[in-house]
């Protein structure tokens, strides 16, 4: 069934995140920000961070993007908010590993379980870039 395959990709709470993303809008005060763009599909996102030293104090994003990108941004910010920078970089590499290995292995256990939802992307390789865009933009903002 097509719908079954699609449901694997668009899991309930991914859709929930995408329809009502957390941390949406521009932070009134921010120390770091970056714009990310996927030239293949036109997804565009801006990530805002407010840092105190090496600690994230506030996060937000704005976008004109597809549901996978929006859900990924929302979940990413939920994960990294109020965390230390070295943890954030670990999350980044875990998420990348998750997409490459296509399994929720021990290497990525520091991510919340709900990130398992992104395993649905394994059948839609072209959409992996959508999920990765917020993370790449985050990394860019921190450079």
């Amino acid at each position, binding site marked *: 069934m*097509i719908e079954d395959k699609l449901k694997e*990709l668009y899991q309930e709470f991914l859709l929930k995140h995408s329809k009502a993303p957390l941390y949406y809008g521009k932070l009134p005060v921010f120390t770091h920000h970056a714009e990310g763009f996927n030239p293949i*599909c*036109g997804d565009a996102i801006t990530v805002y961070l407010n840092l105190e030293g090496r600690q994230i104090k506030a996060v937000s994003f704005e976008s004109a993007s597809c*549901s996978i990108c929006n859900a990924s941004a929302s979940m990413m910010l939920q994960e990294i908010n109020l965390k230390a920078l070295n943890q954030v970089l670990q999350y980044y590499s875990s998420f990348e590993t998750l997409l490459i290995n296509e399994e929720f292995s021990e290497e990525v256990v520091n991510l919340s379980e709900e990130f398992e939802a992104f395993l649905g992307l394994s059948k839609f390789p072209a959409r992996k870039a959508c999920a990765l865009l917020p993370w790449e933009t985050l990394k860019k903002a921190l450079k």
Partner: protein
Amino acid sequence: MLTFDFITLLIYIVHLILQILSIFFVLCVKTMFSVESVRSDFPILSSEVNGKSLIYLDNAATAQKPDCVIQAVNQYYRKENSNIHRGVFYLSEQATTAYESTRDLVADFLSAEKSSEIIFCKGVTEGINLVANGFSRSILKEGDEVLISEMEHHANIVPWQIACGQTGAILKIIPVLEEGSLDMDAYKSLLSEKTKLVAIVHVSNALGTINPVKEMIALAHAQDIPVLVDGAQSAPHMEIDVQDLDCDFFVASGHKLFAPTGVGMLYGKESWLERLPPYQSGGDMIEKVDFGGTTYKGLPGKFEAGTPNISGVIGLRSAIHYLNDLDRFGASTHEQSLLGKATAALNEIDGLRIIGTTRNKASVVSFVFDEIHAHDVGTFLDAGGISVRTGHHCTMPLLKRFKVPATARASFSFYNNESDVNALIEALHKMKVFFG
């Protein structure tokens, strides 16, 4: 006796009339357009995607290839492969003849006056780069202007940005109106003694809009301004007559014309091609090479350095023969009917908006949903075997003008049928429920 002769004559005349009628009938039946008959010419159309029959609606990106084109390329590599313009041996002469006869065929296809006005290139992108490079090196000066439009493909924007950057010329833009047509009043006022070239798309790949290029060329010529027409999207849908259009340059890509990828055509008026310097240099484009100085070949060789895409040109030859045998009027009428049906059905879907609503359109329809991003539309349709393009269609300034980050685009060829349109509409309705 007289009566007998009269009856014989009458039988003879009736027989003759019947014969003429039968020949006429056979000719009509042979050439009359039938979608089911052309579908069987394209092997890929009987394949499956995601367990569903392929419904290919991305013809504006690239067209599928008829079996005759696939066979021609295959045959070339199996039995005819050799380089052109080189050896005196049998195969090389055969390949050279096939290559050069395709030039004649392309000249006829575009109604050019001379075969030497046809330059083979990789496609529209390279064709425009060739002209932009020549203008940059020999025509454009600081303060000159190049005029393009807001609906150009990146291939007709970036080469001119670079040419202007190198020369100090200024790129001017014809705005696009809300329904997706060009602002002709703005066009007229943008033409001036500073304008050194107008480079304009014939049919918009993102909107389907057919631009009034003949009228635009006449307006530019009234001020002695040459015009380049980007025919990437027009050549597959309509017959092209470069002499009637009176354009100075016309470019088209083979792969959108049912030929292989990596081959295309640039038409240039002889006087212009003579004036422009060589684009790339090396083997085959020279007359005599000496460390004291090198002389170049005349047209068209001057613009074809190195071993060209010979198999691509052979495939192109087959594709043009295919199109020449096709009832193109019937094909175009069929495409317009698909466009009409799709447009009407899309307009019935709540939350869907068509971008590009001008009346004069090729069979391309771009649309967006209020709540669903084009990328999600594309993935959903693909799961049902339906291939559409999603994204900015290499027309980022145009999408910015319409304030949308991306659209979904269905583009129909003559081999698409009504059930393809119905499948698209049905899948979009299902999608709305899915993303509810």
